[in-house]
């Protein structure tokens, strides 16, 4: 299964960059949780498990994996529905399956599974351009997990499925007119959605984003604190474990959603630029894998997993600076979260997988 010569084609540079981000993550979690806490050790284990998942994901040929994608997809959907009924509840939503030693969050893996499914479906087509039928099926495949996850409720994670559909459909040749049409619909539908589709707390988040000062104690609090955290870091930062905003808990969930703010506070603009550079490098390097991929399946698979990753990175970092409404979206590879770490590393395993097998038949 794993030929020896493939070993030479493993993209060690990408792995190095990913691990560098993981190292920053561990340092920041160590800092915000005040030392070698339980949170920190959990993250270390998750990193170990993630590396194993990555090794597995890259050793199985992505094409044979794609051949079984409908089964994997089905299994995933069953798992997600199962969570709705049997999952454990935390913070008002049912997202986790309690495995005793570990709380598994299946929705994190759903992204990778969806990417694989869509890549298989759109990549195996022999027609030169996408038909409306193809698009409809792809959209339906996305809608199922989207709706289930949104029911948990975890709108943040559900939304990360959308970039997968959009990007894969886009590179698969979705006509530009659809893209323009979608943009127009999005602009027009936004106010309507704001009014009717969103929950009160979601509306509140958006309105306080536009003017955080209107409720500095409530919903605007996190946003104001995020900006203070970032801004007070300055060029050089306050130093490792010297941050006041994160350390004294003015910024909530510092080790999770707002870990990048703490990085900005303690390591300053320098640390921010290094981290941004690493993420940018990882994304560009992975895009290379898509360009180099031997077939459309490989390219779409890379783009699928990468699109959700990139969306989350950009959104979370924007939010960390207080420039986007606060959503429960973590920063992949950096925020605390075992499932996310394992799923993300596994998806990078798939990217490496595609690049590694670009010469094989």
């Amino acid at each position: 299964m794993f030929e020896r010569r493939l070993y030479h084609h493993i993209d060690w540079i990408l792995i190095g960059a990913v691990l560098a981000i993981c190292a920053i993550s561990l340092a920041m979690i160590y800092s915000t949780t005040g030392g070698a806490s339980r949170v920190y050790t959990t993250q270390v284990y998750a990193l170990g498990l993630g590396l194993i998942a990555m090794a597995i994901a890259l050793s199985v040929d992505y094409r044979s994996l794609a051949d079984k994608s409908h089964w994997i997809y089905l299994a995933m959907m069953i798992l997600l529905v199962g969570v709705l009924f049997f999952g454990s509840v935390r913070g008002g939503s049912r997202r986790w399956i309690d495995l005793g030693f570990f709380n598994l969050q299946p929705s994190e893996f759903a992204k990778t599974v969806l990417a694989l499914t869509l890549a298989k479906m759109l990549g195996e087509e022999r027609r030169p351009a996408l038909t409306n039928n193809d698009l409809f099926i792809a959209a339906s495949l996305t809608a199922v997990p989207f709706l289930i996850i949104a029911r948990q409720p975890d709108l943040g994670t559900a939304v990360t499925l959308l970039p997968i559909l959009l990007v894969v459909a886009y590179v698969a040749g979705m006509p530009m007119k659809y893209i323009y049409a979608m943009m127009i619909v999005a602009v027009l539908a936004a106010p309507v959605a704001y009014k009717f589709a969103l929950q009160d707390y979601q509306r509140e988040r958006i309105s306080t984003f536009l003017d955080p000062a209107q409720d500095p104690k409530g919903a605007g609090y996190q946003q104001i604190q995020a900006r203070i955290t970032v801004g007070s870091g300055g060029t050089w930062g306050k130093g490792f474990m010297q941050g006041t905003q994160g350390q004294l808990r003015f910024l909530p969930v510092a080790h999770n959603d707002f870990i990048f703010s703490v990085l900005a506070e303690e390591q300053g603009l320098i640390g921010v630029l290094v981290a941004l550079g690493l993420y940018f490098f990882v994304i560009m390097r992975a895009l290379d894998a898509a360009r180099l991929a031997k077939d459309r399946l490989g390219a779409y698979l890379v783009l699928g997993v990468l699109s959700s990753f990139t969306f989350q990175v950009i959104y979370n970092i924007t939010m960390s600076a207080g420039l986007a409404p606060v959503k429960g979206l973590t920063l992949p590879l950096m925020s605390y979260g075992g499932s996310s770490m394992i799923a993300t590393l596994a998806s990078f395993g798939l990217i490496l997988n595609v690049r590694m097998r670009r010469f094989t038949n």
Partner: protein
Amino acid sequence: MAIAEDRRRLTHRLTVLRVAIGVAFVMLACGFWFFQVVEHAQFKEMAENNHQRTLTLRAPRGIIYDRTGKLLVENRNSFNISIVREHTKDLDRTIRVLARVAEVEEKIVREIVDRHRREPSYRPIVVLPDATLAQVAAVTARRLDFELPDVIVQEVPTRQYPDQDMAAHLIGYVGEASEDQMQSDGVTTGSIVGQFGVERVYNKLLMGEDGAKRVVVNSVGREMRTLEEVPPQQGRRVQLTVNYAMQKAAEDAFRAYAYNGSAVVLEPKTGEVLVLTSMPAFDPNDFATGIDRATWNALNTDKLRPLQNRAIQGRYQPGSTFKIVVATAALEEGLITPERTVYCPGGATFYGRFFKCHLAGGHGNVDLRHAIEKSCNTYFYTVGNMLGVDKMYKWSEKLGLALKSGVDLPNEVESIVPSTEWKHKKYNERWYPGETISVAIGQGQLSVTPMSMAVMISTVANGGTRVVPRLVKAYDEGKGWVPVTPPPSPFAPFLMKPETVAAVRDGLWLAVNGQGTAGRGRVAGRDVAGKTGTAQVISNQGKERARGKTDQDLRDHGWFVFMVPKDNPEIAGAVFAEHAEHGYFSATVAKHIIETYFAQRDGLPLPVLTPPPPPAATPVRVAAVTGPGGTD
């Protein structure tokens, strides 16, 4: 071909994605640069405000002693329970829980919070000043449970007056600074400053300097560590001129006989105030942690006006004590000699009107000494008529009876002695010579404070040279006691003729030790010289109307002014008793003060107040009209 086209499209669209992502990252980098470099200073300050608190460490006020080193005012530690709204999520809930835990009425807590609503939210609002230990324990326990994270307990030094209401008007009280005081004293809101008496006048000395502690707090307001601490500087120790034993003697005497009034005793040579009392008094401890509304209202609506400092704010007719001024003026002006005699048949006619002497049968031929001794009205009608009202005023002012004494207490009122100019200014009327006759025996429109009276008798005791009464003997700035040098007297020094001094002293000595009216002031072997006086509460015409009424409030007030020992007075003063009818009772109070003074001076046991006679069963009827000049 399809494959190639496919490839081309993929490459193209990949490039679009690359550019889009690149733009996003550049924008992010710019955003961070803007916050972290351009706006860094502002956010840095906000972060510091977030986690750094400057707590005020209240400085204990200076300790106050009497002239013998007896402690008059000290400090104790009390606990204030406050709400810091900064980290409050639900103020309503905090108020509710706090009120329940501390077992106080929710409404009261809410009112206090409302009153301070507009202050910055990091400033603690003291809702339970001087909390009990049970309240402190209850709140502290809830705080540890994070049930009341926004409630803090602070230990603060608080004023303590061990002798409660003793010398209350002299010592004064403290309270939260008003808006004006924040300006004038340069203090912040919530500062405790002197509001009355010595506490107010010497606030700068007594207040000390508050310290500050800069601490790091976390998001729920818990103190994590101290960054910097400037310890508070306690206020200066201050030694008053007042004599504890004498002050107590005065107040005990008033209380024993259930009279209200005032006593002021000075050291005539220096102007140091040995006794300054005003009865009834209040307990300054009630003010120390913020007076509650009920107590405040009670003090303010009390008909006896316990908050008034009668010694400098109460004005009364001097009655016969004014004869001292008339005698001095006539002698100094050279109008009479002490040997000058006047025949008293029981009154005399001036300007077509008969003025009575209080002794119906008359005193016969009296010289000045005996006129003072017996308080002969006829003598002083005659001499006063020779002087005229303006000369009497001139000497009243010279001796310190008119206008203000200048004592270092706030809100002193001017003592009034009439003059032609005064009447013209006040009523735009000319002076009628007949009025002079009444003034000569201390009636008519004279209205003087006990303090002025004490200054007047001190000036006479000094044989001239009017002093300014003062209250502070020394203060300690940390290097031992520094005596306060009195500021130069604003009054032109003058000396009375020796024969004037001798004659007046003799007259006063006779009044106490001879056949005079002030026999109750006599102290064996101490040569007390003094004079009683009666201040009419209502005019004789008023008495006519009030005839038959038995209201005690219509009874006349009684004065006693004194100096002792006669030939070289060490103390001099005035005792004023409300509705005591005559000066006899005042002389009794003075006697107790004088005995206490000498006992303490000579190291003897302090005198014990002889128990008072049983109080009269029925209020005394208002005396029948005796015509003008019904004085003793």
